[in-house]
Structures are given as structure tokens and as C-alpha cells.
């Protein structure tokens, strides 16, 4: 029970400005081991920006980010990934002309041997590594969709939206992250597909011990179903935090979404 309380991620006064626009303003949040947090708010409220600052794509203008006890505020994207943060993107960012296997293997980067000598001259060892990773990728993808797992060497560009999302999530999970950032996984999908995808994600969480997830989402059904806690942003500021029911009945939140008088 004690392990459950371990803090995985903490934002303290996180601020990011673009010129005069304050995209994130003194944002505080905390995430514990195994928790699923929903990050919601109207368009432009700073949800994706917080992901981008966390993963090192943008620099923070103020405040700090602590991940597993380390201050990672100014780390480059590569180092944040190495530390155990994996993400998906709002507009799916897969390499469409590469195969499913290639795309998933990009996620496994930190476990692969990238030495020049190893890759060019030690072909036997390399092929061994390729086959081992293939097995793992296939196993992971089978959880999401066994049919997809049979198409490992087909280009991602030929697949449906939901399959692309699945692959993007597999690419993130294959890195064995401690923290998974999902940026609007339901965008461009039907309700049915969204539900399917959410089932898959919950199943994966059961399997990976201590995986925490931050979910940015507009689809409130999904938020209600899977999150332990919700944080509402508006104009870069946190306006409310709590269980979905509390948040949904909060007056400030309703105003933010529907507009106040």
C-alpha cells in the first residue's frame, strides 16, 4: 500500500509563455504511482503545452518538473524518454511509410544497440536482437489486436485511424515507461472505437505494474470511466482538481466550458 503513494511526477509552478500569451501559468500537479489522471479543459487551455514542456520539446519559462525524484525541468526530449516518459501525439505522428514493426521499434530505442560496429559487422548478434524485439512487439500488439499483429511488415500509412492509434500506444509502451502521456487518443474515432481503445489501455495497465497515465481528452465518457482524478485547465491555469463527479459539478468548470454570464 505504501508504494501506491509514491510520487511519480510533480509540477511546481510550471509556466510557459509564447510571446505575450501565457500558455501555462503556475501549474501545480502531482501524480502518484499507478494513477490515471485526466487533463481536461477547453481548446487552447494548455493541455498539450504541458505535455510538450514535460517531454522537453518546449522549455519551461518558470517552475519545475520532478520525475521519480529527479529535477527534469530543462532536460532534452531524449533524456526525458530515457528516464521513462513515453507519449502519443494529438495528431498521430507515426512514420507512415515505414512498417508497423519499424514504428514500434522506434519506441524501443533505449534498449537497442546502436553502435556502428555492432550494426554493420555483427550481423548475427543484430539479427538475434531483431528477432527478440520482434517477439516482444508482437506480443504487445496482440493485446490490442491480434489481426494487426499479423501485419507487422505492412506500411502504417495503409491502416485505419484506430489501428494507427494502437500502434502509437504500442510504440510508447514498448519502452517500458513509468509514465504514459496520451494526447487525445479518441480524436478522429467513433464512440465504439474509443471504447475499444480504452479497454485495451486498461488491460495494458493491469499488466504493467505501477504505470501512471496522464490522459488529455475531450470525450467525457472516457474521462469518467478511466480516471482516478481530473485536473481542469483554463487559459493555462488550473481551475479545479478532483474526482470526475466533483469536477463536473464545479461551477468554474461549467463556466469555462459553456461560458459565464
Amino acid at each position, binding site marked *: 500500500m505504501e508504494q501506491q503513494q509514491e510520487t511519480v511526477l510533480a509540477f511546481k509552478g510550471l509556466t510557459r509563455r509564447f510571446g505575450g500569451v501565457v500558455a501555462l501559468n503556475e501549474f501545480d500537479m502531482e501524480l502518484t504511482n499507478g494513477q490515471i489522471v485526466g487533463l481536461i479543459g477547453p481548446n487552447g487551455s494548455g493541455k498539450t503545452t504541458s505535455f510538450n514542456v514535460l517531454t522537453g520539446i518546449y522549455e519551461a519559462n518558470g517552475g519545475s518538473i520532478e520525475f521519480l525524484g529527479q529535477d527534469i525541468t530543462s532536460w532534452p526530449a531524449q533524456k*526525458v524518454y530515457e528516464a521513462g516518459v513515453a507519449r502519443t501525439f494529438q495528431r498521430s505522428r507515426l512514420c507512415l511509410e515505414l512498417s508497423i514493426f519499424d514504428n514500434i521499434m*522506434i519506441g524501443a530505442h533505449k534498449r537497442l544497440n546502436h553502435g556502428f560496429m555492432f550494426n*554493420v559487422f555483427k550481423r548475427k548478434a543484430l539479427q538475434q536482437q531483431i528477432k527478440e524485439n520482434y517477439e516482444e512487439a508482437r506480443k504487445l500488439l496482440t493485446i490490442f489486436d491480434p489481426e494487426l499483429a499479423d501485419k507487422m511488415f505492412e506500411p502504417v500509412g495503409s491502416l485505419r485511424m484506430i489501428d494507427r492509434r494502437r500502434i502509437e500506444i504500442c510504440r510508447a509502451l514498448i519502452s517500458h515507461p513509468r509514465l504514459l502521456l496520451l494526447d487525445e487518443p479518441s480524436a478522429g474515432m467513433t464512440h465504439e472505437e474509443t471504447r475499444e481503445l480504452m479497454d485495451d489501455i486498461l488491460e495494458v495497465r493491469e499488466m504493467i505494474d505501477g504505470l501512471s497515465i496522464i490522459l488529455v481528452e475531450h470525450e467525457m465518457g472516457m474521462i469518467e470511466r478511466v480516471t482516478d482524478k481530473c485536473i481542469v485547465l483554463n487559459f493555462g491555469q488550473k481551475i479545479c482538481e478532483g474526482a470526475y463527479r466533483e469536477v463536473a459539478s464545479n461551477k468554474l468548470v461549467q463556466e469555462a466550458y459553456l461560458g459565464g454570464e
Partner: protein
Amino acid sequence: MTQSLKDKLIILLLAALGAAFLVTFIAIEEQAEIFALLVFAGVLIIASAKLGLTDKISQSLSRNERLLNLSVIAAMLVVIFWFHEDHFPLLMIATVLLYVVACCGLNMQFGYTGVVNFAGAAFFGVGCYTAAVLGGTGTPLLLVIALGGVMAAIIGSILIIPVLRTRGHYAAVVTIAFGLLFRTFLEVNDTLGGPQGLPVSGMNLFGWDFNSNIQITENIEFSFYMNYVILALIMVILTFILMRRIERSWIGLNFDAVRLDETAAACYGINIKRWKILSFTLGNFLAGTAGALFAMMLGFIAPSNFAFSDSLILVSIVLLGGMGSIWGTILAAGLVVLLPEKLQVIQEYRFLLYAVVMILILLFRPQGVLPRNLRSYIPGWRG
């Protein structure tokens, strides 16, 4: 007949056909005949594409890679030995082969990692000048070829900072500027011969002089270009192996990830700079080695050999063949080098024609004549 036997027969037949075509194409001189042969080949290719034969053939080819590679080498050897005593055809073939090596270098940069390089001729030239300067010093000439590549890679490192900081058009402009600077530098530099250029001593391998004809028996004499063609062919084979191994490894995957989406690549731990530097350096190395042997073969080099237009030709070979496609590069280098030599009509309108072909390719077949396949890490293995 089993499928695998059928595949093998198809490959052998194609190799024989290719060799026969190449021999005829190089041997005939009459313009009308050359034209007829080209039209015939074109009709044959279009017809087989319409009949769906090309798909079947390409499947057969991809199932038997090793046999395909070996048959192509054998076919090349047949063509080379056919012209064993003719200087000019052998010179042309050697030129094509060295262009293949240089363009594979550009393909590594542009096709794999997306780093544009419009100074290909300059790096080729660095190799040439290395051979010219070191040729008389008694350095083993095989080593000189490697040093030509090393010099090109070192001089390329001047460009690394601007290349890493810029993308797309801006990176193109940086390399164009470098190419122009390189030529101007050669023209005003008297120690490197200025505009008149430099003589280059020929290849000499352990006392075997490449620049004298080879007497086999009293009646059979091989042209001295034979030496160069064989050495160039060996270089192509080594380059091919290097390109393939890189493509089919995690390095090749990193290159592709950098080209296709730098942001996503960075979020998955891929060090953009590291891979751009590696592919840029390796590519320049290949161009430099090709240049060194080319200079030894020609015996004389001058700055006018390394103009901007020559760099453009190298880039157009990569685009014509298909980004990242090694076979495409081989085919396109053959077309771009041989066609103007054979069809004199083209000679004068060469650049105009290249431009038109480039526009047509980019409009209607942007993936190139022989597009690159999906990566198959281990030939024949699909999980």
C-alpha cells in the same frame, strides 16, 4: 515447375537479357538503331507493367536476393569482358560505376536521413584532388582511395554545424554555397594547379600498373581500363553491402525516423545530431572514394569537372532512381551517364532534358523509377 525454380529461372533470364541489352546498347553507334533499341526497351517495360508482369517479377526478385545480386554481378562481368579491348566503352562503364558509388553516398544523406547535399561534386572533387596530391608521394594507392574518402569526410565536417542548424531549402542553400566556394577555391589556388588543374598518377597495385594494357596471350590484349572497371565494380559491391547493412539495422531505422519526423524521433530518444552527422560523413566518404579512383582513371583533373551542374546531376540521379533505393541509383546512374554519350542529339540539350525528366518524375512518380521497398531486416524473414 516449383515456384522457387521458376523464380530462379526468371532471375537468370533477366540478368541475361540485361547483359545482352547493355552490350548491344553500348556497341551500336548508329543513332537510329540506338533510338530504336530504347523505344523497344521502353515498350517492353510498359507492356510488362500493363500485363502485371512487373509485380510478379519483383516478387520473384525479392524472394531470391542473393541469386539476384550474384547474377547482376555476373552480367556486369559479361558486359565488361565483352568490351575487353575497347577503351571507350570501358571508360563509360567505369564512370557509371563510380557515379553509383558517389550517388549511394548522396542517397545515404538525402534518401535515408533527409540531409540534402547539393555539393556532391565538391566532395567527389575532394577525393580527386587527394588522389592528385598524394599520387606522386609513394603512398599505397589503395590507401589513397580510402584517404580520398577520409578527406571528403573531414572537409564535410566544416559543413556539419550549418547543416545541423538548417533544414530543407536553407540546408540546400548552405551546401550550394559550399560547392561554389570549393570550385572558386580550386581556381585561385596555385598549389593545386589553379584553373589548369593537376595531373594524377594512375593506379598501381603492388607493382601492377593499371595504366598499361594487359597482355593475356599473343593475340588477346585487355584494355588498361579493364583494371579500373574491375576495381570500380569491387567498390560498387562494397558500397552496396554497406548501404544494405546500414538500411537493415537499427541505424537505418534511426535515419528514417530522423528524416520523417524529427520531433517524434526526439521524443523517443533518437539523437538527431548524431545520426545526421553519421550519415553526412559516411555519404561524403563514399563520394570521396569514388572521386579518388575517378581521378586516377582520367589521369588529369581540373576545377571545371566539379561545377554546380555536376552536383545537380548527382542529386538528379538519386531522385530519378528513388530516394533511398540502391537499385534505383544503379539504374539511374546508368541512364544519366550513358544516354547522353550514346545519343548525340541529347548531348547538347543534356541539362534541358534532365530538367524536364526531373519535373516529370517529381510530378508523376515522386518515389522514383525503382522505389525503395519497406525495410526487411533479414531477407526472407517475416516474423
